[in-house]
């Protein structure tokens, strides 16, 4: 967790603000490293936001005497440290809370999966861009989330010229219109990254699929899905690397599961980062959830998200995946489960 401290008066904030309102000097950002439980209460009453009981609500304290609220389903003793062991599992899904700082949350989820990027990596980012709507509808990747991903990459010393942000329209809506209205084009411009229309790239045949050459040239593909209840949003987004005609034809010949699995075999360098800070319900209402998920297996990620959001129905492509068979790391499913459909 991050905190912001005034170098002059030493007041501290958890909110990401710039200036100390008392001293009017820039705040210094610091990160809490070690978290120890200093008090713990076993909560027995379910609520919409916390439907699974019992759970434990703790006060935790870091090495700088900052105290935070923290929820677990596991019981901790007073004085015990809360820490997470990263896993090296291509099918695992990392779950983490966004505490105002998207970039920091992304960093944490990737650390939990032991994923790191070399400085000279060529990155292709595939944001969700499906309709010409303002960001608050949560149809498309949020500008803040894309900006957070870029901030994370820049902190890894990856140069803007090695980053491409690409998308493709599978319907009649021009991709430029969606990019402009969603606010994603602004993020590209502000960071000196030229957006790329995948439809205008060359495609190469890999097995039954025709994949954009840009994807195959990248060292890492970041599949930025904005997660939606009752959908396989990450899986649907990765289909955008295919030639539109090839995808539509493939759907007649094969199941979406077969296409998704073949694509996963071809794109081993893909990492999905799921945005779930504010998410869309099946009735299109948006609800705050405060999460991000990450993993190399987008089918697993979509299934875990639908488990967290307590989806009543989900696409066949993920329905048969048993969540108990998926390794998760970071926050536990029951810790973050939220009965969004009734709120």
């Amino acid at each position, binding site marked *: 967790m991050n905190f912001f401290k005034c170098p002059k008066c030493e007041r501290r904030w958890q909110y990401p603000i710039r200036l100390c309102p008392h001293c009017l000097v820039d705040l210094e950002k610091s990160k809490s490293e070690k978290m120890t439980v200093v008090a713990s209460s076993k*909560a027995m009453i379910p609520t919409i936001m916390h439907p699974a009981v019992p759970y434990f609500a703790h006060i935790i304290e870091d090495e700088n005497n900052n105290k935070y609220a923290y929820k677990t389903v596991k019981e901790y003793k007073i004085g015990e440290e809360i820490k997470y062991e990263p896993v090296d599992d291509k099918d695992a899904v990392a779950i983490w809370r966004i505490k105002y700082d998207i970039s920091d949350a992304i960093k944490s989820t990737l650390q939990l999966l032991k994923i790191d990027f070399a400085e000279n990596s060529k990155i292709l980012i595939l944001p969700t861009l499906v309709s010409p709507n303002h960001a608050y509808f949560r149809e498309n990747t949020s500008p803040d989330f894309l900006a957070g991903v870029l901030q994370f990459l820049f902190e890894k010393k990856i140069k803007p010229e090695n980053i491409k942000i690409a998308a493709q329209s599978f319907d009649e809506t021009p991709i430029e219109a969606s990019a402009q209205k969603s606010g994603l084009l602004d993020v590209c411009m502000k960071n000196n990254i030229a957006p790329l229309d995948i439809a205008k790239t060359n495609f190469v045949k890999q097995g039954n699929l025709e994949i954009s050459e840009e994807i195959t040239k990248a060292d890492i593909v970041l599949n930025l899905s904005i997660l939606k209840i009752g959908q396989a949003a990450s899986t649907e987004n990765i289909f955008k690397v295919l030639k539109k005609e090839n995808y539509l034809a493939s759907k007649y010949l094969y199941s979406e599961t077969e296409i998704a699995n073949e694509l996963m075999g071809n794109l081993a360098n893909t990492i999905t980062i799921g945005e779930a800070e504010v998410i869309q319900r099946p009735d299109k209402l948006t609800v705050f959830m405060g999460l991000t998920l990450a993993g190399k297996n987008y089918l697993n990620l979509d299934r875990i998200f639908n488990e967290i959001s307590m989806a009543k129905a989900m696409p066949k492509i993920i329905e048969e995946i048993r969540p108990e068979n998926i390794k998760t790391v970071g926050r536990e499913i029951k810790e973050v489960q939220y009965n969004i459909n009734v709120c």
Partner: protein
Amino acid sequence: MYIKGVGMTKFDYSVKPWWLFAYDAAIEALADAKMNIADIDAIVFSSISSAAGGEHQTHKVSFLSDLFKTNVPIIEIPSVCGGGGAAFWTALHLDEYDNVLVLAAEKFADNKSDTVVDWILSAAEKVTEQTEGMLFPTQNALVWQKYMEKYGATMDDLSLISFKNHSNAALNPKAYFYKKPIDLEKIKSSPVVASPLRLMDCSLSVNGGAAIIISKDETDVKVIGSGFATDYLLTFGRQDLTHFKATQLAAKKAFEQAGITPKDVNVAEIHDAFTSVELISYEDLGFAEAGKGNELIRSGKINLDGEMPINPSGGLKAKGHPISVTGLAQIYEIVNQLRGNCEERQVKPEPKIGLTHNIGGAGGSVTVHIFEKVKK
């Protein structure tokens, strides 16, 4: 300023709309003041939205204008559980007006428990507290754990507070638990809600309304002290986890203004949203030294027949806690105690000085008011 009239509905689970609770309380206060609505120069109102949203009304001041057929200024002051006290504090600062109606109404208990509790959760910080399970019972349970760790009080001390307040409410016709006393063993064995707090340590969310008319005209009850302070929303970001700084600051201001000390108070209504909050508040208000609050409850001095009864109305615990209404309901009780109108639960000898203490959230906004019986 003086108290001219007071009114309060019974606290219950009736399904009247919020405005009818406001109306009933206001009519009672006007009758008590021997006034009509045309005598009122301004209204300060407090409420929060209902839990289910079925009565969602965000322009309540205009609704009240329509209800009372008046065009005077009406200000809405929401501050969750501390709304009533904050509205009263605001009204005291409206120097331009001779007669001000302070009003609060809630139809809050109108849905399943998980929905209502989830709505109350909205008074905690969203990103770092609500998501981490900081319901008000868990927040207060954690504060109480740190208190017990530091000072060595026990859960039995809290049971005594619950027992005291339930015993008092059983004598209060407007309390939810009127004529329904609860025995001590039942309190001690009630189910755990958020360890170590039990169900019988938690106040009761109910519906209701309350109204107070303040006036520049001299009456039998004078407001002699008023304090208002706030504190950080992030409960665990505060310096002292075991006490409520905002209560200490508001009390200091109110006592300074009144020119008296806590020893001069004869009766008090304290914000017992949780029994632990009542005990900690004994210390924050200056009725006990830090760490000695349990001695006060064990001594019996604050029982109805004690030296300085606390929560003779039954408190939030057993009279009921209709969120914004609570602060005004406390004033209603103290005014009636000072006037000697409380029949079976009347504090004896008749008190001269009374105090109210109203908290918003987990100590985030606090008002303290002191009232004096005026000799006529």
